[in-house]
């Protein structure tokens, strides 16, 4: 144990557990709950009459039935047991029954009264706070434990509040990995890095090729790093942003009465108004609802503002031209299998955008390139 916080808490705990306040409480709990657990009673229900007695070893009738007919059993039987809803509170019938049980076992219940009087204020303040705060760590470790088990690596990134020369090896999307690991599917890991004047990844490539996953990964790494968590990557050097902004394609919001394109523009304006040079902005399929011309026009301007601010970001788009807008932009392409364009590798590589090459290949597979289609139509 090396963390200052945990070492201090450990010292506190060992002092607390040695105190008579604590040892007395434990002994009293054991005594009282042991006595309560030993209580067994019987209800004899007949119409609206209830009689409460001590339990005196009467035979389990279900077991007797089972034993009588066991000779007929040869396979697992259907379960006919009903499930019951538990009301949050005892009602007056249950209260009356417990009152009568208390009369049958007066010593046990007198001890309970005394216990309550003695320990009404048992909860230690420091422990109460620890209980709340430790959940922050425990929740994350619980989430990533099954992933680690399958060999996915997490690391504490090298973080800096100045250098924007960032990079990650073997990184992946936590949300997707959680899903894939539960289905025993393989998680594809990616690498990225930015050097010199590079600030923004412009991601292009076929649908279902891993673009959105990459965008999410990039945002997650920076967000998780700034929380102090280990990040989903083998190794990583990351910038500590002041904020992480996202701009993802959304279903049309009828309440706004605005078109989707307009809605997206309003949202990105708000993002850019609030973003600083130290922010991270993740944009996914923004402006996909409009024409190529508009998407190019708006994209150039938004990217221009982002690069002039010098912030870090990802811009997933179907507009190839944006990939080579300026020296701050780095083109990343989602790859397909060379001989089978329908198959994806989910790997992203630094490469000039090549949407047309992909279109040609996928059309060829279905015999729909210009030459093929012409031949078929003339045959």
């Amino acid at each position, binding site marked *: 144990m090396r963390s200052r916080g945990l070492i201090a808490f450990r010292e506190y705990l060992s002092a607390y557990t040695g105190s008579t306040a604590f040892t007395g409480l434990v002994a009293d709990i054991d005594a009282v709950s042991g006595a309560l657990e030993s209580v067994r009673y*019987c209800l*004899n229900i007949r119409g609206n009459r209830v*009689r409460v007695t001590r339990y005196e070893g009467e035979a389990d009738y*279900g077991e007797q039935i089972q034993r009588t007919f066991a000779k*007929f059993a040869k396979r697992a039987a259907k379960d006919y047991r009903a499930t019951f809803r538990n009301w949050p509170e005892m009602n007056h019938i249950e209260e009356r029954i417990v009152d009568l049980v208390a009369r*049958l076992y007066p010593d046990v219940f007198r001890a309970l009264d005394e216990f309550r009087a003695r320990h009404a204020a048992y909860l230690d303040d420091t422990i109460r706070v620890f209980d709340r705060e430790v959940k922050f760590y425990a929740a994350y470790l619980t989430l990533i434990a099954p992933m680690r088990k399958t060999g996915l690596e997490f690391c504490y990134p090298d973080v800096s509040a100045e250098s924007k020369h960032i990079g990650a090896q073997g990184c992946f999307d936590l949300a997707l990995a959680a899903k894939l690991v539960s289905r025993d599917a393989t998680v594809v890991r990616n690498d990225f890095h930015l050097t010199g004047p590079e600030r923004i990844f412009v991601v292009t490539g076929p649908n279902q090729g891993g673009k959105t996953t990459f965008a999410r990964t990039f945002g997650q790494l920076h967000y998780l790093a700034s929380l102090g968590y280990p990040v989903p990557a083998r190794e990583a050097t990351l910038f500590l942003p002041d904020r992480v902004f996202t701009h993802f394609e959304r279903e049309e919001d009828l309440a706004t009465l605005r078109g989707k394109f307009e809605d997206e523009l309003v949202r990105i304006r708000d993002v850019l108004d609030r973003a600083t040079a130290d922010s991270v902005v993740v944009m996914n399929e923004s402006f996909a609802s409009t024409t190529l011309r508009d998407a190019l026009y708006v994209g150039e301007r938004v990217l221009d503002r982002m690069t002039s601010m010098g912030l870090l970001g990802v811009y997933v788009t179907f507009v190839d031209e944006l990939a080579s807008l300026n020296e701050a932009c780095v083109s990343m392409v989602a790859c397909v299998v060379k001989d089978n364009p329908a198959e994806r590798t989910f790997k992203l590589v630094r490469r000039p955008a090549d949407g047309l090459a992909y279109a040609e290949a996928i059309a060829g597979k279905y015999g729909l390139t210009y030459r093929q289609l012409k031949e078929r139509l003339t045959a």
Partner: protein
Amino acid sequence: MKAFLMYPDRDFDPERDLPANEADLSNDLELDVLLRAMAADDPILFEVARHAIHSDLTSPGDIVYRQHVLADCIAQPDVIGDMYEVAVAAITAEKKVLGWIFRDSPDTILNRSRQVLRIYVDMLHRLRDIADGSAASFRSEGFTQFFKMIARELDDDYFAEMEAHLADLAFRHGTLISAGLGKGLRGARYILRRQPEQTWRDRMPGRSKPGYSFVIADRDDTGMRTLSDLNSRGLNAAANALAQSADHIKDFFQMLRAELGFYLGCLNLRNLLVAKGEPVCFPAPAGQEGASQEGAILSARGLYDASLSLSTDATGANQGGKSTFLRGLGLAYLMMQAGMFVAAESFTASVTAGVFTHFKREEDATMEKGKLDEELARMGVIAEQVGPGCLLLANESFASTNEREGSEIARQIIRALTEARVRIVFVTHMYDLSSRYYAEHDPGILFLRAERQPDGHRTFRLPPGEPLPTSYGEDLYQEVFGACMVKEITR
């Protein structure tokens, strides 16, 4: 409690998965005609027969075990019928009690199960009575064990025990439910307890165990609901046990119906064939062990296609030809290895590890593939399932392409399969295929040829003979001269 009428050591499972090639066998061997004759319009008998015909028994001991049980049934058909009726009555009586609604409350489940058990106990009693009256006249090992089991498991003490439950489960003194204290001191772990029997002494004032009572007021609906909820929690496990017990006894009757149903089906089929004057006989199965040494045995006299006989007025000996021969042979193997009699005067054969059929199909149901594609695809499926000791019945296989190609494909397949110790009966009119085998003088191959009299009439017989080239081009397909080969394994 097991009937053991189908196997000396295990239950017959009429819900078992059918073999993968069941659809092909059913189609090619016209199994449904046979099964309908066994079922006599009873859909349950049909399903039982459909599963039993694919028993694929490979141990001659298991086959003879069923033959002996069946012989008892033939001798005492009324007793079999009576027991079958008891089983059917028990199973259907259950439906008379109010319908089974899933997610019923425990007291409804308990009440209904009690009523069903009342009927089951009566039916078990009738079964005991039949056993008491008839056991002495049965000879087979299967029935001797069965009646012994009934006498042992369903003795008078056991009936008394069941009756006591039925009486106590009416709860004339209310229910007795134990509980402990759970979280927040709420009652937990509710368990129904059997009320100890009370003597007059127990009921004397001051003798009963200490306790406190209260009564729920007349208009306290919430209170009554709570009480009924507590009662249900208590009854839950016992109701479950009782319903499961009822299910288990129903399973017993269902198993009894299935096992007796198979023999009843055999009796139905036998009656039909015998009424037509057709011969039936118990076959003599030979084990597989010797097969690898000296070659498998197959010897039949008066073999005919039972399905064909059942669907026409003529008898089996006066109709048919090559396909009929294949079907008759296939049926005989299946029936023998289901422990049934076979449609022949006599039949002796080594058991097969599985019967497979590859028959020419009249039309391609899907129209997606070419005919040769379809044939090859089916053969591909067979190749995945076939193994040493299996029997393949091929009927005009690969005739959908030209003879040279068809016979070359067939030759390669035959060679591979026979080397894998598969026995093959191959009906073909491809002379290129049959003549080449004939020239090889392989003692492992027997050539049969459809007999035709000088005037062109067929005799429906297939005596041994040399293949002849097809030269009846103008004849209908069925009349085309062909050859039938039986290739047996000598390795």
